[in-house]
């Protein structure tokens, strides 16, 4: 999707969709990039009380502009509390204090398992190195639920991960419980084409919504496995004036 005049870009749709998914959350663990955009947008539009928690140690950060890194000074300056990184991961994340975690993915499979470590680039080429795990395995384990925001493409939505960095729903229903994972795991995957959610019966991601103007066929083409769809695929409401204005304000400050 292009970002041409009059069209809404894919990243905007993802950010707006992700922000809407934060309506009922009290606390949100935020990574840099789209999650930070979405969480800040949610705080401005849908959920002013949303507590943003950055893994760098800022609890209750209220940045006025989007930080480039999770350690930007404004996060610290506006936080309710600053804690050391060890404490963030032990008492706050592992302690089950965070309602919603946000993850991205280089590869994602139908059970919302995530690869952010390395990808197979074909015979004769070394595996392509990605940043690695960061906070993801424990965010997926301990947050009440997880939102995944990622652009739709067959290279990303794959039949089989080249490396399992972070467990989503594992091999299907009950697998999280078998691993002793507390949180509900990924509850929606928000892309530039629509929204996928795990089927309650099978834990497999199915298409539940498309963005305005996107067809189910387009989403299927952009998915590397035979994508199932909900009985009724909805259409996400387009970004509102307010959402777009606040998103611009966040980015332009």
């Amino acid at each position: 999707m292009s970002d041409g005049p009059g069209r809404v870009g894919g990243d905007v749709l993802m950010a707006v969709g992700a922000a809407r998914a934060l309506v009922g959350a009290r606390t949100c663990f935020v990574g840099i990039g789209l999650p930070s955009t979405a969480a800040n947008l949610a705080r401005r539009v849908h959920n002013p009380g949303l507590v943003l928690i950055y893994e760098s140690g800022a609890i209750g950060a209220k940045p006025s502009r989007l930080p480039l890194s999770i350690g930007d000074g404004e996060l610290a300056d506006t936080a309710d509390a600053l804690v050391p990184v060890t404490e963030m991961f032990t008492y706050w994340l592992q302690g089950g204090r965070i309602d919603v975690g946000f993850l991205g993915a280089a590869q994602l499979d139908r059970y919302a398992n995530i690869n952010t470590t390395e990808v197979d680039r074909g015979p004769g080429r070394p595996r392509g190195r990605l940043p690695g795990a960061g906070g993801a395995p424990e965010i997926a384990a301990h947050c009440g639920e997880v939102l995944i925001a990622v652009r739709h493409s067959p290279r990303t939505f794959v039949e089989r991960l080249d490396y399992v960095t972070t467990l989503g729903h594992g091999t299907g229903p009950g697998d999280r419980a078998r691993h002793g994972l507390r949180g509900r795991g990924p509850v929606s995957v928000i892309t530039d084409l629509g929204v996928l959610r795990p089927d309650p019966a099978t834990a497999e991601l199915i298409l539940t919504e498309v963005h305005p103007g996107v067809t189910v066929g387009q989403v299927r083409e952009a998915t590397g496995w035979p994508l199932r769809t909900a009985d009724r695929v909805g259409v996400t409401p387009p970004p509102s004036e307010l959402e777009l204005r606040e998103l611009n304000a966040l980015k332009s400050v």
Partner: protein
Amino acid sequence: MAEIRGLREAVADLIRDGDTVAMEGFTHLIPFAAAHEVIRQGITDLTLVRMTPDVIYDQLIGAGLARKLVFSWGGNPGVGSLHRFRDAVENGWPRPLELDEHSHAGMANRYAAGASRLPFALLNGYRGSDLGRRTTTLSTIDCPFTGQELAAVAAVNPDVTVIHAQQADRDGNVQLWGLAGVQKEAVLAAERVLVTVEELVEVLEPRPGGVVLPGWVVDAVAWVPGGAHPSYAAGYSERDNDYYREWDRVSRDRDVFQQWLKECVTG
């Protein structure tokens, strides 16, 4: 007891070929100036430890000084890849780079175990991840009370930890504030400690969020204003986001990187 020393002399004295070195700072207070001094002195065969290797280790790796990297997230925050890191891992250039790779929670706990002088730390983590398949520093342990299986991660105890802080006094007592990262743990886990600071002050005034490291846990303090650039020191400087963006271009090409090295560090 910490001595106030010049950076060149302190680096030469405290960091040795083959050392395990942690240069910590979570986006904030990253000790770039000390890393550049390591490059100038050509101290090599290092095992580099850092949760987020960041541009600082991309530079050391590209300079060929790293034998091994212990880490949990190797990207250029908000920008993209660390190209020197990728080139070393994917192509072994300028030399192969051994990896010991964990999650953030695991790395934070490894430092905490090191500071606590415990051989390992416990966490509820890594479940279902492939991370455990390639490292010898991750295992499991069963709770003797509940039977629950937990992850066990080996302690990290660097030979040397280097950090940057805002202030030190004449006795080498150090104070840093703002995002405190894992600096305290990295310092207390280490055998030797070097701290570069923005300012030497007569008296450390306690600050909100201030982390104080007594001089008797520090070996050397070096006065290096701006020593965290392109990262920042809260109260002294802003993060140079343009540098991080520009690093993507500089580091993408081996020749451009080597020219940068000559012009900006070793030259």
